[in-house]
């Protein structure tokens, strides 16, 4: 059991996450498109490649690196049987994200976020709840263009976060930010596909390793 948990940590890319996507895939899914120059957040400036006709373009090389780190981290969490919660407040992609979460066997929350869900969980859900071990934000802003409450709450409860940050978002409190577009349907479908594939791969690997261990 101990060997099962420590073995993936010795490899840099145990789940071969790099093969899931290429730069061309990101470009075709329009991940590099940001918002206009006036909406730019100060802390997103290091991730921005440049500005064309007032529209910000995100640096896809940095996005690649961040995406690989994030997917690798999610795969490790899924391998260890952790609870992953997908959060987004975009109404257009709510159905897509919920279906993705259901397909993975993980959890989603794309509806109105009640104040004490993470911080007051033991009273809201009952004693003995298990909180999510990873929160994945497919869009960090809520309907009023403010940072989602779950970022701050997860940071308070020491829960690591992975988030797709657009040019108008604040990447500060997110542990694994992924600079990229969160408004186009193509980009969102690409992210959902990537997360779904990583989680399923990680869970399959876990089942295989357990089967091999049992055979010995």
């Amino acid at each position, binding site marked *: 059991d101990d060997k099962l948990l420590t073995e993936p940590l010795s490899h840099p890319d145990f789940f071969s996450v790099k093969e899931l996507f290429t730069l061309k895939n990101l470009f075709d899914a329009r991940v590099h498109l940001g918002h206009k120059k006036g909406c730019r957040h100060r802390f997103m400036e290091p991730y921005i490649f440049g500005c064309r006709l007032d529209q910000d373009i995100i640096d896809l090389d940095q996005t690649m690196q961040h995406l690989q780190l994030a997917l690798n981290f999610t795969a490790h969490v899924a391998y260890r*049987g952790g*609870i992953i*919660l997908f959060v987004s407040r975009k109404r257009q992609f709510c*159905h897509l994200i*919920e279906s993705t*979460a*259901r397909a993975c*066997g*993980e*959890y*989603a*929350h794309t*509806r109105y976020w*009640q104040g004490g*869900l993470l911080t007051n969980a*033991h009273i*809201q*859900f*009952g*004693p*003995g*709840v*298990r*909180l*999510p071990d990873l929160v994945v934000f497919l869009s960090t802003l809520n309907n009023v263009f403010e940072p989602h409450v779950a970022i701050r709450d997860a940071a308070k*409860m*020491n829960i690591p976060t992975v988030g797709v940050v657009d040019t108008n978002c604040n990447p500060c409190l997110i542990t694994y930010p992924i600079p990229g577009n969160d408004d186009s349907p193509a980009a969102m479908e690409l992210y959902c596909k990537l997360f779904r594939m990583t989680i399923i791969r990680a869970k399959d690997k876990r089942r295989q390793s357990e089967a091999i261990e049992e055979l010995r």
Partner: protein
Amino acid sequence: TLRLICTTAAVQRKNGGASGPEKYTEAFIKKQIEEFNLGKRHLANMMGEDPETFTQEDIDRAIAYLFPSGLFDKQARPMMKHPTEIFPEQRKIQWGEDGRPFHFLFYTGKPSYYSLMHETYEKLLNVQKHQDQLTVQDLPLQKEKRNLAGSRWLTKIELEEMLLEKLSDDDYSRFIQLLQKLVALPCADIEEEYIQKFSKEVPVQLQKVVIDPLQFDERGVAFSTGEGKRKTARATAVIYDNGTGKITVNGIDILHYFPVLQDREQLLFPFQFLGRIGKHDMVCTVSGGGRSAQAGAIRLASAKALRSFVTEKEVEFMRQAGLLTADPRVKERKKPGQEGPRRKFTWKKR
């Protein structure tokens, strides 16, 4: 460990402290059902009846016989019912042994409501896809008008019972709007089954007042009866055909029973309205109330009796004249702090 496990003092406390409303486990409810069945057989034996054919009504009667109680509240009396009726349906524990919740939307506050919304939206997308396919093939879209008049959506309370969760008014209205959107699409017939889960039939209530047909007594004269009331007076009137316009109240002629002209005018009003003053005889009985109240009661009773003699159009005329409506005015009660129903005590400046 790298991560602090955040628990509250409540979780760290092993025993003690209220843990909210009692949770009934499945094993507990099963035991209760077994006990109930055994108890039912014992009761049947005690009452000398057949244990196999002992119904719930028999149980209720037996308990009422064995434990007579004078308490007013029916719920407070001793009762023996099936455990599913006594223990309210509760949500069972939502997560498994390893702590992972069963429902994929558990971390929202209301998993069943949001999963319902998710399913309904999926049906909507399905219908739209089907529509697109039909338009691509240039086929006509089905346009059979769904009969909306005879059905209504589930109320908020019924939906709460269905989902076993509390809903807010906003949530309920959003769900209904989504359903209406789904129904409005032309190809919604595909998901007809799903929609029918949330709609109920409203029985069309035609409140047609049944007019009694004419009855014939021994002499062959047609007659009909009517009842009326006004304030505290109750009256019954029997009107005979082929009469001379004689009216008897409680065995006394109206001239002697109602000395005041106004009361007699009230009695004659229905006949005068229909133009049948000298054509009918009337025998009435009246009790309660005062002078005017009795007159009004008899008027209503005679108008109701006359409906049988008259065409439907004239009945409509009578109804519009106000002859067939019972006067709802009664004496208003006196309130404390006031001298009468409306009159306040004399206001003194000092």
